[in-house]
C-alpha cells in the first residue's frame, strides 16, 4: 500500500466520524433560548401585593421572562394569569401545556405565586355556530363535566407548581356568561362539578369561586346582576361548600380606597360587603383573594383618575389589604402589561407599557414595597 492511499483512507474515516458526530449532536435536545436563570425571591414589605399579568397571547419567551422579572422587581409576590381551556385542550383530550409551562416556570423562578384563572370554552364544547352563534364564555350544563375535566388535568399537570385556581370570570355579567341570563345557581353547579373533580385529583389545591364583577345592575337586568345579590344566591345554593376561598374584584373607579363601603356604590371597600355575606352565611374562616382591582388614569375615560391619584390610591389599597383585612390573602391589581396596545383607555390600567417602559405607578409601588418614602 502506498502512502497516498493510506492518507486517503484516513481522510475517509475522519469524514465518516465527523458526520456521525454531527448527526449525534443534532439529536441532542437544545437548551431553551431564554433560560430560566437562577432562583429569585421577592423582597417586599407587603407579601399580599400582586398584579394580574396578561401573557396568554404573549408568544416570545423573553417577554414572559421580562414580565416576571419586572413584577418581582416591583415587589409583588402574587400573579393572576389566565389559562384558557380552548388553548390547552383544542380537541377533546388533546392537551397542550407548552405555553402554560413557560409562564408558570418563569413565574416560579422569580419567586412568584401563581393564581390560575380558568375559562374560555373551546369550539368543540359549544353549539355548532351554524345553529347558534356563541362566544367563548358560553358553556351549557351538558359540558360542565368537560370543563371540570380540564380543571382536573390542569391541577394534575401543575401539581406542586400552581396551588390556586379561579373558576370562571365574572359570571354575574351577561358578557361572561355567554350572553345568557346570569344564573348564580347554575354557576354554583359548575363550581361543584369542578371542585369535586379537582379535589379528588389534588386535595391541596385552593379552589376560588366568584370573581364577580362589581356592579349595581338589578336582578332581571340582561347585562348582569348586582354582585352582592349574586353572591348571596350562590351561598344559598351551597357554593360555600364547594370553594375554599372567594375571588373578588375590587375596582375603585373615581373613588379613593378609604371611602366606606356602601351597597349602592362600586368602590374598593365593596370587598368588605362580600366578606359580610360570607360571615352571615357561616363562612367566617373563608379567605378572600382580590384577583383584579385598581384604578385607571386615562385622561378622557369617565371612570378614570389622575395618574398621581392612581399611584397613591393603589399603594394605599395594598396597605389596607395588609393592615385592615386579615381575611384577605392577596391583593392583585389589574394589569401589569398588555402584549400590544389597545389604543384605548384599557392601556391606562397597566403598570408598564407594551415595550416594558415603567409608568410612574410602577415606581410608586416599587418604592412602597421597598419601604421607601412615597
Amino acid at each position, binding site marked *: 500500500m502506498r502512502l497516498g492511499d493510506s492518507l486517503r483512507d484516513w481522510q475517509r474515516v475522519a469524514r465518516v466520524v465527523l458526520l456521525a458526530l454531527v448527526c449525534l449532536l443534532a439529536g441532542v435536545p437544545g437548551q431553551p433560548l431564554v433560560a430560566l436563570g437562577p432562583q429569585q425571591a421577592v423582597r417586599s414589605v407587603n407579601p399580599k401585593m400582586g398584579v394580574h399579568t396578561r401573557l396568554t397571547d404573549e408568544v416570545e419567551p423573553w417577554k414572559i421572562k421580562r414580565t416576571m422579572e419586572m413584577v418581582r422587581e416591583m415587589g409583588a409576590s402574587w400573579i393572576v394569569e389566565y389559562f384558557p381551556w380552548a388553548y390547552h385542550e383544542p380537541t377533546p383530550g388533546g392537551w397542550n401545556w407548552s405555553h402554560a409551562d413557560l409562564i408558570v416556570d418563569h413565574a416560579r423562578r422569580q419567586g412568584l405565586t401563581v393564581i390560575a384563572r380558568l375559562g374560555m370554552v373551546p369550539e368543540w364544547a359549544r353549539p355548532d355556530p351554524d345553529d347558534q352563534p356563541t362566544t367563548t364564555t358560553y358553556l351549557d350544563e351538558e359540558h360542565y363535566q368537560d370543563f371540570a375535566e380540564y380543571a382536573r388535568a390542569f391541577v394534575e399537570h401543575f401539581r406542586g407548581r400552581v396551588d390556586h385556581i379561579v373558576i370562571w370570570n365574572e359570571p354575574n355579567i351577561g*358578557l361572561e356568561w355567554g350572553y345568557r341570563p346570569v344564573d348564580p345557581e347554575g354557576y354554583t353547579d359548575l363550581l361543584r362539578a369542578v371542585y369535586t373533580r379537582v379535589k379528588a385529583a389534588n386535595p391541596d389545591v385552593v379552589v376560588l369561586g366568584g370573581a364577580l364583577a362589581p356592579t349595581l345592575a338589578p336582578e332581571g337586568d340582561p347585562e348582569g346582576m348586582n354582585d352582592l345579590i349574586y353572591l348571596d344566591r350562590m351561598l344559598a345554593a351551597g357554593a360555600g361548600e364547594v370553594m375554599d376561598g372567594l375571588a373578588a374584584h375590587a375596582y375603585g373607579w373615581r373613588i379613593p380606597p378609604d371611602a366606606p363601603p356602601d351597597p349602592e356604590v362600586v368602590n374598593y371597600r365593596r370587598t368588605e360587603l362580600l366578606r359580610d355575606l360570607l360571615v352571615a352565611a357561616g363562612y367566617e374562616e373563608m379567605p378572600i383573594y382580590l384577583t383584579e382591582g385598581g384604578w385607571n388614569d386615562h385622561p378622557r375615560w369617565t371612570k378614570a383618575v389622575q395618574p398621581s391619584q392612581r399611584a397613591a390610591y393603589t399603594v394605599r389599597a395594598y396597605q389596607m389589604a395588609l393592615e385592615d383585612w386579615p381575611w384577605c390573602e392577596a391583593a392583585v391589581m389589574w394589569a401589569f402589561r398588555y402584549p400590544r*396596545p389597545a389604543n384605548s*383607555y384599557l392601556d391606562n390600567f397597566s403598570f408598564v407599557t407594551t415595550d416594558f417602559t415603567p409608568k410612574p405607578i410602577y415606581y410608586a409601588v416599587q418604592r412602597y414595597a421597598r419601604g421607601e418614602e412615597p
Partner: protein
Amino acid sequence: MSKRWRWFVAAAVVVLVALGAWLLVRTLTRPVDEIWERIVGTGVLRVCTDPSWPPFEFIDSATGQIEGFDIDLAWLLAERMAPGLRVQVVSVGFDGLYDALLAGRCDAVLSALPYDPLRTEDVIYSVAYFNAGQVLLTRPEVAGIEGVDDLEGRVVGVDWGFVPQGDPRQRELLRNLPVRRYDTAADALRALHAGEVEAAIVDRISALSYMRECDGLVVVGEPIYDVNYIIPVRAESSTMLEKLDEALLEMRQDGTMEALQGHWF
C-alpha cells in the same frame, strides 16, 4: 374576412360568453346578507357602544341619553344606507364589544374602536372614519418645526403615558428626545401654550379638544402615528359593509364628516 380573422372573432365571442356566464353565476350564487335583510325589514340598525368615552360616546347627565360623535355618525350613516332607518344604541362595556357583535346583540360597533388586525378572522371592518393617533403641536411663533425630524435638541412636552410610536427610526428619535412629562395631555398642551416647552406630542383627540377651547397652538403636518377608528360588522355582513363604506366615503367627499368633526371638536 380572412380565415385568421374568423378564428379571432370566434375566440373573442367564446371569451365574452364565458365571462358573462361567470359573472351571472357569481351574482346568482353570492351569499345573501341576512343581517342586512333583517335590518331593512325591521327598519332598525342596532349599534353597540361603550358610553364612557367623551366626546365620542357618553351619557348626557341632563337627559340620561347616550350621545356623542359616534351616535351622530350612526344616525347619518343609517339615513344614507337606507332612508328612514332608525338607530338603536346598545350599551356594552368596551372589552365586550366584539363578543356582543359576534353574539348578535348588535349589527355594528361604533365606539371609537381602533383597527385591530388580530380580529380580521372574526369581523370585517369599514374604512376608517377618524384618526386618533399622535400629533405634533407647536406655537406659530416657534420657528423651524415642521416635523418630527426637527425636534432634535428641542424640549417636547408629553403626558406620563407617552410611548414613542411609528417606524423604528422615528421611535428611536422620539426615545432620545429631552421630553418633559406632564400628568395629562392637556397639561402638556398648557405647558406648550405657556412657553415651557417648544413642542408637544399628544393624541389627536386631546389636541382637537384643547384647540377647541384655546387658540394659539397649531398641529404640524399629518399624525405622526395612525390610530384609525373603524366600524366592525360580522363577517357575513358583506352587503351591509358595502353600504357602510359607500356612505362613509360619500360623507368624506361631501364635507359631512368634516362638519361632524367641527361640531364635536
